């Protein structure tokens, strides 16, 4: 048993923290207010290797490990949930499936620019009628000569419109149900592929969440990712890992709200002394701190198992379930302890509470996580 991070992981934390304090924290409120995608920071994150964390060097990545990746998303999210999810969706949902299931040609063509941060990735699974029940895919892909022809609509796609490279799921053989789903790589700008409505959201407002529309969108045959009919497995495998990213995002949001609260209660005075001197508030901090730490070890454990090649589906689900619920708990408490100020945009905890909510919903709701966990537990 060893709970210490490696020197590399510690240094990655130090580096991302410094980056976050200088580049990310200052614009977090603005991109939330104006719903602006922080392109300039994403470019810098690419330059510093944060967009290719888990990708081997030969494919342009930083070849870090999963724990360092979780730490990166955590530290970014500590100041800005939006920036955290941009990194997470790009890394877990686009880089990873191409790395895992892609052909050498696909890796050369698509993965390298993604890992270098020259291009941004996204993942299209959810449809208006296929959310938690992802098997109900209505988007279709039909083979025609040397091409696949895609038709259908995806919704709630993180990095939609901003991304260049999309991993898209579609039914290639309806008669086979989930075994008829296949995965494809679709590039922005392909004729027949357009970006639909951009959602106006409660939180993570700087992150682009859009519809993707495919109307007779023709892509080359070689853009099939993995084997035909294996798409559902690819989607589920990808989401297992994605949950670690979202769990890390939730952890970061919780830690950020806790940091803000500790700072606030030491400054804010009522009844002639800092409110942090009151035991009732001190105990709240104790509960918040305890939950954040518990979440952290669940997240790092899942990430560690993944990097060691051990099974991690259940652990990732537990990490996401607990970390996202912790993020909601801690941010709600944080707003409460800030009193009236906490409800205003003068303090970041209001934004953090709005950002936290989505972590209980996307990449598998808390209910889905409980399904995954119980199924793996009650055998």
């Amino acid at each position, binding site marked *: 048993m060893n709970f210490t991070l490696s020197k*590399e992981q510690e*240094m990655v934390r130090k580096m991302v923290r410094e980056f976050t304090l200088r580049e990310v924290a200052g614009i977090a409120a603005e991109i939330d207010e104006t719903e602006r995608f922080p392109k300039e920071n994403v470019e810098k994150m690419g330059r*510093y290797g944060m967009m*290719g964390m888990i990708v081997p060097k030969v494919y342009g990545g*930083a070849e*870090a490990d999963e724990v*360092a990746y979780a730490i990166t998303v955590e530290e970014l999210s500590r100041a800005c949930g939006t920036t955290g999810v941009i990194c997470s969706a790009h890394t877990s949902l686009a880089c990873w499936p191409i790395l895992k299931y892609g052909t050498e040609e696909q890796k050369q063509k698509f993965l390298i620019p993604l890992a270098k941060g020259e291009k941004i990735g996204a993942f299209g699974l959810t449809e208006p009628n296929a959310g938690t029940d992802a098997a109900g895919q209505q988007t279709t892909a039909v083979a025609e000569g040397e091409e696949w022809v895609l038709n259908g609509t995806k919704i709630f796609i993180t990095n939609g419109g901003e991304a260049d490279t999309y991993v898209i799921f579609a039914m290639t053989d309806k008669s086979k149900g989930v075994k008829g789903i296949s995965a494809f790589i679709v590039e922005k700008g392909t004729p027949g592929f357009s970006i639909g409505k951009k959602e106006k959201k409660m939180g993570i407002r700087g992150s682009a969440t859009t519809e993707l529309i495919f109307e007779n969108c023709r892509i080359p045959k070689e853009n099939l990712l993995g084997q035909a009919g294996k798409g559902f497995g690819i989607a589920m495998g990808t989401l297992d890992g994605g949950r670690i990213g979202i769990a890390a995002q939730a952890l970061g949001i919780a830690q950020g709200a806790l940091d803000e609260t500790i700072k606030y209660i030491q400054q804010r005075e009522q009844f002639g002394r800092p409110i942090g001197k009151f035991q009732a508030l001190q105990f709240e901090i104790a509960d918040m701190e305890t939950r954040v730490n518990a979440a952290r070890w669940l997240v790092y454990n899942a990430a560690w198992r993944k990097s060691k090649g051990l099974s991690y589906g259940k652990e990732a689900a537990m990490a996401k379930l607990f970390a996202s619920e912790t993020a909601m708990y801690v941010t709600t408490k944080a707003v409460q302890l800030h009193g009236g100020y906490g409800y205003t945009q003068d303090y970041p905890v209001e934004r953090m509470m709005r950002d936290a909510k989505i972590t209980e919903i996307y990449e598998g709701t808390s209910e889905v996580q409980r399904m995954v966990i119980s199924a793996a537990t009650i055998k």
Partner: protein
Amino acid sequence: MKIIVCVKQVPDTNEVKIDPVKGTLIREGVPSILNPDDKNALEEALALKDKNPEVHVTVVTMGPPQADEMLRECLAMGADEAILLSDRAFAGADTWATSNTLAAAVRKIGHYDIIFAGRQAIDGDTAQVGPQLAERLGIPQVTYVQQFEIQGEDILVQRALEDGYELIKVKAPVLLTAIKELNHPRYMSVGGIYDAFREKEVKVWTLADLDVQKQEVGLDASPTQVKRSFTPEPKGKGIMLKGSTKEMVEQLVGSLKQKHVI
């Protein structure tokens, strides 16, 4: 082109607090960092390397074994090579002895074109090691460098003055000390961090590795010694004004006027 960058690991003096009761320094939790001006020095060297991959950047520091971490950070930013001068004999050195040790290391490194150093370290704030190293190596120096460029054979730098700057032309080899106006240091990169541990090494040189005598380094070779150190005493407590804002400012203004301060 070969560049040597002299760096130092320092306590982040911004984080140092004084125990209000005992008047002593609170050291716990004060992080050790790469000295800020030295980071600018390293950045300038790395910027040259960005433009020309032939540029080779060696960072050198004198310090305890823990300075390894800071050197890894320099490697993670992009330096090619790191050397740690570490020996019990080097300890307690003033700037005279420090520059002597560094000079011996630079001579062992051999060929170089430019030595970059930070103007000063935030723990000592002396700004002496750079010029003294240049003197020992017999090369020219330009301190307080706020802009740098290479034009053919010449190096053109702006040297900051209190009320402007001098434009100075000099030829390699030269020692330049950087101030924060020189550039914006880059961050480490994730890949750089892993390379720093997996592929690059921090060479450790002890006294035995350098062509310098024991009596020429460390505390014993230092002409200056600290006779005494103490925490500065705050001035006696003044008056805390009371009342409404209007009352307070009136008391203040009245008192200053009566005491002929204004």
